[in-house]
């Protein structure tokens, strides 16, 4: 199965403005670069990773700055 299919099946939608795979229910976002660069096993592991649900988790190759996180949290809701 392709990575995009794995993400779609886990209720992630592609956000064309930010180039992110986003699931607002679990508040997780994967950058397209992260998805491209990491193996499927890691994508699956990150999808299954439990969160406390309080704030967004961003899976990026390079950690976004606090400012960017703030903005993305605001934009993604």
């Amino acid at each position, binding site marked *: 199965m392709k990575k995009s299919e794995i993400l779609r099946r886990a209720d992630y939608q*592609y956000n064309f*403005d*930010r*180039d*992110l795979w986003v699931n607002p229910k679990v508040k997780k*976002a994967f*950058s*397209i*670069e*992260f998805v*491209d660069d990491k193996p499927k096993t890691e994508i699956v592991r990150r999808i299954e990773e439990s969160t406390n649900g309080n704030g967004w988790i*961003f899976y*990026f*190759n*390079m950690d*976004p*700055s*606090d*400012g*960017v996180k*703030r*903005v*993305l949290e*605001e*934009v993604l809701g």
Partner: protein
Amino acid sequence: MPKRTIEDHLEIEDLLREEYFDLLPVVRRLALQLETEIRSLTPSILHDLRPYEQLVVKSRVKECESALNRLLGPKEGRTFDPDRPGGYSLLQLPDLAGVRVLVFPNSRLIQVGETLRIRFADWIPKPVKYGSGSAQAPKYIGCCEEVSRAIRGEYQVVPMLLGLFWEVEHAAVYKFRPAANSKHMRTHRTAVEDSLISFEMGMEIFVRDKIGVYPENPSKN
């Protein structure tokens, strides 16, 4: 009016849009100035074209959203950083105004490139690589001081077939990140570019071997 401060991401984008429309009249003048100068430098080549050869000069002003995206660059998450020291300005972009000179066949590219280089000698070269080999299209970045010392423009001399392909490819691939990151799409793009190079070379070899020296352009008499 008091200067607004950047407090959040949405304000950064709004302020950049404001800046864009403040700059737009000058950017338009720069595009027109560049196009006019380039046209005025190339009539001798234009009049000497053989019937199968072409030279087309096109200018463009970068669109607002395209300028914002270019300023963001390939950053993960495509988000302006409100904490970035120094902030953002569209004046950081090298190509708010641009001229593309499309030529066919490739032999005319060198001639046009050398002609323009004399006028734009102090402009910085940023050649564009294409295809799987070492092919490069000349591109230069600089200022027209008569118009503005702050806003930079660019001109490119491009094989015509490639330039026309890029008009579609840039929107479909270059500006669409998933496609731009795709190895498959990069392979397809390179294959098309190689094929276009091959067509141009084939045409030049055909004329050289089958026609020889092409007769003087009849319209000149």
